[in-house]
C-alpha cells in the first residue's frame, strides 16, 4: 500500500475520531489509534526507502492548488507525531477520562485530534499558504488543549502567555512567507537555493520557528505552558510540537540560501539554550516545570547539531551538496535526538502525569518514596531519567554521541568551524553533567526515600491505560538504544531529503561497535545487578531504619529537598536564575517556627519582558486618558488630524 492511501486513511481515522470524540470515548480512541498507526506505516515506508509521495491537485484551497508531499524528512517527524500521538491518546483515555473531567474531556478529545491533524498537515503541505494555515491551526489547537482546565487562573495565564508568544512567532512567519511570496511570485515552496537575495529571510524564520521550538531567550512561554497543561498535552507539546519548530528551521535552511552568519548563530544559540535550559531545570522544584526547561536544553542540543550541519555544508563547498563528513554526523545526531527526546520526554511527562494523578501535586518536595506505591511508574521514570541524561546504554547517549563525534571531527579537522565546535563540545559536556544532576534529583526526590506528605503516602499506581503507553514508549527508547545502526539508514534518508547527496546509508563502522557495547553493557548491568541481589539475599538481610549517622528519630522532613540538592550547582548560575528567597530564621531560646521559601522566576520573562510590558501599558494608559469624554476636545482632535494631514501633504512636496 503506497503512502497516499495510508495517509488518506490516517486523516479519515483522525477525522472520524474528531467526530466521535464528543460522545464515545472508546470509539474515539479506536479511530485515533487506527489513524496514528496508518500514519506511522506511511512514514515507515518512506524511511525504509520508499519514493517520496507527492500529490498535486487542481483543487484549490484558499485560492492555492493543493500540493502535498511527504519525503523522508517529513516522514521522520510524522513518525514521531504518530507514535507520541497514539501513545498520548491511550494515556489520555485513562488520565483525562470522562469520569474525572466531565466537561473538558470531550473538548480535549476534539482538540487533540485537531492538533494531530494540523501537525500532519504542516508536515505534508508544500505550499506556503497551506503551511501557514496548518501552522496556525496547530498553535490554536494546542492553546485550547493547554487551557482545558480554564477555570484555574494559573492555567489561563499560562495559556494566554503561550498564545501571545506564539503570535509573535506567527507574525514573523507572516512576514517570512509574505516576503517569500512577494519575491518569488508564488506561494509554492521548494528548493530555491540559487536566489541569493532570499538569504536574509532566514532571520525571520529563525525567530518564528525558534520561538515555537523554545530557543533561548524565546522560550519564555514554554515552562508555564508545559507545566500547566494536562500531562498528555505536555507530552505531545514537549515531545512533538516544539520539534515542528526544528522542522521549520530545517526546511528553511534546506530550501533557501542561509546567511553566512546563520550556522554560527545557530551553534551559539544552541549552546546557550542547552546550558541555560538545564541550569533552569536543575533549579526547579515543580517536576513538570523541570521537564519543560529540560526540553529547552534538548532543543539546544538539536540546534547545535543543526548548526554544525549547516556550517559543514557551508564550508564543505560552495554547492551545499557535498558537505564535510562531520556535518552529516552532527545532523544525524540532531535528527536522531529529535526522535529520542520526543520519546523519553513523553515517557517522563507521562510518568509525571501519573504522579500528579496519584498525589495531586507537582511539588517534588511534597513527594518521596513513591516507588513502593507505584513501582511501574518509578522504574519507567528511572529509565527515562537515565536516557535523558544521555547515559549509556540508552538512546539519549547514541544521539548525543553522534553530535559529539561531529563536533570532535570538526575540531580535529582544524577547519574554521572548529572555533564554533570547541566551545560547543565543552558546553555540551557541562550540559550533560548538569542533566545528570537534574534527573538524579527529580527521580530520587519523587520516588526514593520516605514519603514527605500524606498525599505521597496514600499514592496509588496508575491504571493500565496510563501504564501501557509508558511501556510502549520506553520500549521504543530501548530499541533505538540497542540497535542504533538500524536507525542510521532511516536518519540518513531524512538527511538525504534535506541535502541531496547527504544520504550515505552505510552507518559509520563505529556505530555497530557502539551498538554492541550498548547491548553488552545492558546485559552485564542486569547480570551484575541480579548477581549482587542474589548474593545479598543469600545471607540474612536485616531490615532496619536508615542509619543516618545514628540519629534516633529521623523524620521524612529531614530529607534533602529540591532546593538543597540543587543549591551548589544552582549557586553558580545565580546570576541568571536570580532565585527569590524568603527566610524566617528561628529566633530566641525557644524558637516557634522557621521557614525558608525559594522560588526561581522565569528570568527573561519577569526581569526583561515585564518591565518593557509595563512601559507599553503606561503608554496605553496615557493614550486612553485622551478618550476622556469631553466633546470639545474631540472636535479639537479632528482639527489636529486635519492639520496633521495638511502638514504631511505639504512636507510631501505638495503645493
Amino acid at each position: 500500500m503506497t503512502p497516499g492511501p495510508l495517509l488518506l486513511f490516517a486523516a479519515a481515522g483522525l477525522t472520524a475520531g474528531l467526530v466521535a470524540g464528543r460522545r464515545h470515548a472508546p470509539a474515539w480512541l479506536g479511530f485515533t489509534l487506527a489513524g496514528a498507526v496508518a500514519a506511522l506505516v506511511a512514514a515507515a515506508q518512506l524511511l525504509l526507502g520508499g519514493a517520496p509521495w507527492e500529490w498535486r491537485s487542481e483543487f484549490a484551497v484558499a485560492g492555492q492548488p493543493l500540493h502535498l508531499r511527504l519525503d523522508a524528512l517529513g516522514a521522520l517527524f510524522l513518525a514521531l507525531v504518530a507514535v507520541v500521538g497514539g501513545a498520548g491518546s491511550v494515556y489520555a483515555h485513562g488520565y483525562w477520562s470522562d469520569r474525572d473531567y466531565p466537561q473538558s474531556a470531550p473538548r480535549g478529545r476534539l482538540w487533540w485530534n485537531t492538533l494531530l491533524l494540523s501537525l500532519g498537515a504542516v508536515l505534508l503541505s508544500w505550499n506556503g499558504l497551506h503551511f501557514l494555515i496548518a501552522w496556525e491551526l496547530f498553535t490554536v489547537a494546542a492553546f485550547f488543549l493547554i487551557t482545558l482546565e480554564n477555570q484555574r487562573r494559573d492555567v489561563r495565564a499560562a495559556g494566554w502567555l503561550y498564545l501571545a508568544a506564539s503570535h509573535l512567532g506567527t507574525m514573523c512567519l507572516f512576514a517570512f512567507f509574505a516576503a517569500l511570496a512577494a519575491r518569488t511570485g508564488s506561494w509554492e515552496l521548494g528548493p530555491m537555493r540559487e536566489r541569493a537575495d532570499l538569504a536574509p529571510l532566514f532571520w525571520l524564520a529563525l525567530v518564528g520557528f525558534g520561538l515555537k521550538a523554545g530557543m533561548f531567550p524565546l522560550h519564555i512561554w514554554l515552562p508555564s505552558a508545559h507545566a500547566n497543561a494536562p500531562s498528555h498535552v505536555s507530552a505531545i507539546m514537549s515531545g512533538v510540537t516544539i520539534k515542528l519548530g526544528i522542522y521549520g528551521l530545517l526546511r528553511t535552511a534546506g530550501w533557501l540560501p542561509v546567511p553566512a552568519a546563520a550556522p554560527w548563530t545557530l551553534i551559539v544559540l544552541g549552546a546557550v539554550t542547552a546550558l541555560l535550559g538545564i541550569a533552569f531545570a536543575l533549579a526547579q522544584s515543580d517536576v513538570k516545570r523541570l521537564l519543560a526547561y529540560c526540553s529547552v536544553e534538548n532543543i539546544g542540543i538539536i540546534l547545535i547539531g543543526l548548526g554544525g550541519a549547516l556550517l559543514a555544508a557551508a564550508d564543505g563547498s560552495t554547492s551545499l551538496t557535498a558537505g564535510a563528513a562531520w556535518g552529516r554526523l552532527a545532523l544525524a545526531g540532531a535528527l536522531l535526538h529529535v526522535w529520542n527526546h520526543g520519546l523519553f520526554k513523553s515517557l517522563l511527562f507521562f510518568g509525571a502525569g501519573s504522579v500528579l494523578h496519584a498525589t495531586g501535586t507537582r511539588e517534588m518536595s511534597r513527594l518521596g518514596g513513591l516507588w513502593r506505591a507505584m513501582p511501574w511508574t518509578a522504574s519507567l521514570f528511572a529509565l527515562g531519567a537515565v536516557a535523558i541524561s544521555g547515559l549509556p546504554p540508552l538512546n539519549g547517549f547514541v544521539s548525543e554521541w553522534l553530535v559529539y563525534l561531529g563536533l570532535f571531527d570538526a575540531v580535529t579537522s582544524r577547519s574554521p568551524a572548529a572555533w564554533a565546535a570547541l566551545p560547543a563540545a565543552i558546553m555540551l559536556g557541562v550540559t550533560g553533567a548538569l542533566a545528570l544532576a537534574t534527573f538524579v534529583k527529580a527521580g530520587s526526590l519523587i520516588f526514593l526515600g520516605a514519603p514527605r506528605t500524606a498525599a505521597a503516602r496514600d499514592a496509588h499506581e496508575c491504571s493500565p491505560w496510563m501504564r501501557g503507553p509508558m511501556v510502549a514508549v520506553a520500549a521504543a527508547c530501548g530499541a533505538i538504544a540497542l540497535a542504533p545502526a538500524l536507525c542510521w539508514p532511516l536518519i540518513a534518508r531524512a538527511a538525504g531529503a534535506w541535502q541531496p547527496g547527504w544520504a550515505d546509508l552505510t552507518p559509520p563502522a563505529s556505530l555497530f561497535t557502539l551498538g554492541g557495547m550498548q547491548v553488552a553493557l545492558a546485559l552485564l548491568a542486569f547480570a551484575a545487578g541480579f548477581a549482587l541481589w542474589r548474593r545479598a539475599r543469600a545471607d540474612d538481610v536485616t531490615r532496619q531504619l536508615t542509619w543516618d549517622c545514628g540519629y534516633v528519630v529521623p523524620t521524612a522532613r529531614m530529607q534533602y529537598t529540591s532546593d538543597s540538592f540543587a543549591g551548589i550547582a544552582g549557586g553558580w548560575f545565580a546570576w541568571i536564575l536570580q532565585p527569590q528567597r524568603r527566610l524566617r530564621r528561628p529566633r530566641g531560646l525557644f524558637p516557634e517556627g522557621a521557614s525558608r521559601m525559594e522560588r526561581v522566576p522565569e528570568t527573561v520573562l519577569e526581569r526583561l519582558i515585564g518591565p518593557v510590558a509595563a512601559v507599553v501599558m503606561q503608554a496605553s494608559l496615557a493614550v486612553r486618558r485622551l478618550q476622556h469624554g469631553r466633546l470639545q476636545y474631540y472636535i479639537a482632535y479632528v482639527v489636529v488630524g486635519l492639520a496633521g494631514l495638511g502638514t504631511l501633504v505639504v512636507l510631501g512636496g505638495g503645493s
Partner: protein
Amino acid sequence: MKALLLVLLPLAGAALAAVWPSDRTRPWLLPVVGVLHVALSLWLLFVPPPFASTAWFAFDPLARAVLPAVSLLFLACAAYAVPYLGVRAERSNRVFVATFLAVLGLLSAGHGARHLGLLWIATEGVTLAAVPLIHFNGTSRAFEATWKYLLVGGTGIALSLLGSFALGYASLYGGGSGDLTVAALASQGAKLSHPWVLAAWVLLLAGYGTKMGLAPMHTWKPDAYGEAPGIVGALLAGGVTTVAFTAVLRVREVVAASGSGAIADRTLLAIGLFSMLVSALFLLGTRDFKRMLAYSSVEHMGILAVGAALGAAGVYAALFHVWGNSLTKGALFLSAGNIRRAAGARTMDEVSGMSAITPHSAAIFITGMFAVTALPPFGPFFSELGIVRAAFGADRPGTAAMFLGCLLFVFFGLTRLVFAIVDGRPRAASRVTGQRFPETMSVIVPPLVLLGFSLWLGLATPAVLTEAWAGAVAQLFPTP
C-alpha cells in the same frame, strides 16, 4: 435601472414601515427587504449591468466589489432584529425599523454614487438616519453618545463637503466645468489645479476619515458602538465605514489622476498606521467588550487605509478585507450583544465565565475574535496576509513590520479581554440575568451564518468576487 432599485427598494420599505400599524409585525419588514436586497445585489454581482461613466449613480465595479457584503451583513442583522425587537417590546420600533431600512437605502446610494455631491448627500443622510438607531435604548448614556456622534461626525462630514467644493474649484481653475462626477474630474487629469487638489484631498480624507473612524477622528466610535444595540453597531461598523472607504478610494482615484497619487498614498499610509497603533494601545487597556469592538473597528479601518496606500495589490487586498471585516465584525457584534444581554454588564470586572452561561454565543465570540485577528482560514487572514505581501512587493519592509507589530499588540489586547470574559467562573449576577436570556436559535444562527461566510470567503474565495475585486482595481488604477 436595477441599480437604482437597490436604493429605492429599502427607502420604499422605510416609508412602508413608517406607516405600518402593528409594532409586532413591523420588524418582519426588515428581513423581507433584506432578502430582496441581497437577491438584487447578488444578481447584479453576477450580471454586472452596463453603466455610463458619466452617470451620477451606477453599480460600477467598485460598488459591485463592496456593496453585496453590506447587503449580506444587513440581512443577517435584519434576521437578528426580529427576535431582538421582540424582546424589546417595551418601546415602539416604528422609527427604528424605518430608519434602519433608510440607512440601507442610503448606504446603497453612497456605494454607487459617482458624483461627489451625491456621495456626500448619501453619506450625510446615513449619518443622520443612524441617529435614532443609536439612541434607541433611550438612556441618558445613549443620548450622550448620540450627541458626540452627531457633532464629531457632523464636523467631519462638513469638512468633506468643503473638500468636495475644493475639488470642484480645482476643476474650475483648471479650466474644467466644475462637474463633480469622478469620471469628469479624473478625465481632467493633470489639468486640475494642484494646490486645490491637495487641499481637497486633505479635507476629504479628514472628513470621510472621520466617518470611517480613523484616529484621531475616531472618538465618536466607542461611545456610539458601545451604547447602540448590537445590530446597529454591526451595521455602522460593516456598512457606514465601508461607504466612507469607497468614498476615499474614489477621491484617491481623482487625486492619482491629477498626478499626486504618491502624496495621497503617503498620507493614507501614515494615518492608517497611526490608527492601527492608537487602536492597539486602546485595546491593550480597555475593559469594556463593546467598546473593544469599536477600537477593533478603528484598527481595521487603519488596515484598509494601509492597504489602499499600497497600490493595486494593496487595494485588492483591502477590498477583500472589506468583505472579511464586515462579515466577521457582524458576527462579533451580534454574539457580543447576546453576551451583553445575558451577562447584564459589559466590563471584564463584572463579567466572566460566560462560556458556562451562553456557550454558543461565547464560542462564536471567541471564533469571531480569532477570525478578526487573522486566524486562518477565515477571510481576514488572507486579506491581511495579502496586504503584508503587497507591502513587501512595494519594497516597504518597514511598513510591513509596523503593520505586523500593531497586529501583534491588537491580538494581545483582544485575547486578554475576550478570554477574561469567556473563561473562568460565572458571576452570580450573570447567572440570574442569564436565565432571563435564553439562547434561542434565532439569536445564534445569524452570527453563525456570518462566520460561515467569513470562513467560506477564506477557504474558497468565490471566483465572482475575485473577479469583481480585480475589476474594481482595474477601475481605480486605469492603465493608460
